[in-house]
């Protein structure tokens, strides 16, 4: 069943940042738990197409983390980062680097804020700040390579032709 709560992504042209925003029907404490518990993170970061397994997870200031994502075809790649701030239940600040890029050093700073709207409702805002606009656009576009990518691209060409 599709959720009623909408996920929105704000990525203004020419900026080095983007925001992912979503509300959840649960107390803030629980939502924070879902974002800061290793097992729960593995459950939702991963999906049918990609399993996620943490090999290190230290959710505290100065801690670090690394997980491996394994695709259905067996190909796997790592992500790692450093935890700057895990303040329950309101804020998580960490860095993230995808190890599969041809060049190391493209790091993203991620701030996740948990805002209490009521005792049973919480708004989550993830802000990602990139080193360059190209880094940001590259990451967003990399997503197209999975699943919907091809169809999307083909339609894009089609539209560029004469539709819109």
């Amino acid at each position, binding site marked *: 069943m599709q959720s009623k709560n909408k996920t929105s992504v704000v990525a203004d042209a020419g900026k080095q940042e983007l925001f992912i925003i979503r509300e*959840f029907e*649960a107390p803030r404490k629980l939502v924070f738990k879902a974002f800061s518990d290793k097992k729960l993170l593995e459950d*939702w970061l991963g999906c049918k197409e990609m399993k996620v397994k943490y090999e290190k997870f230290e959710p505290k200031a100065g801690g670090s983390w690394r997980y491996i994502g394994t695709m259905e075809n067996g190909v796997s790649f790592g992500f790692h980062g450093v935890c700057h701030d895990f303040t329950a239940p309101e804020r998580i600040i960490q860095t993230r680097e995808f190890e599969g890029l041809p060049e190391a050093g493209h790091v993203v700073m991620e701030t996740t804020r948990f805002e209490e709207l009521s005792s049973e409702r919480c708004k989550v805002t993830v802000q990602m700040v990139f080193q360059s606009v190209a880094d940001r656009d590259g990451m967003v576009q990399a997503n197209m390579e999975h699943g919907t990518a091809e169809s999307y691209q083909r339609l894009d060409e089609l539209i560029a032709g004469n539709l819109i």
Partner: protein
Amino acid sequence: MESRRDVFQAIADPTRRDIIKLISGQSLTLNTIAENFDVSRQAISVHIRIMHECGLILIQQQGRERFCSVEPKKLAEVADWVEPFRKMWEGRFDRVDNILKKLKSKKNAK
């Protein structure tokens, strides 16, 4: 099934993209559309139904005929470069919903 109405799945099929291309500049009836393809009228009808279900195609009754046209707003949504990224996060957050549901029921059981 929800996947049936997924606009990205709808356009994954080359025939469906050809149908969109064909009716992008003009509304056409099912019969006229079918005449442009080698496959059966029935097959075209199924393609159109799927795209209608996901909001990509509008169907308007004019007298005895039903005219198919493209819904530009929906098409723009597909053309939005951020959409696949948003979809990925939507999937993740839907899984968070399930986790929260479980956590809540556990809490209530205590």
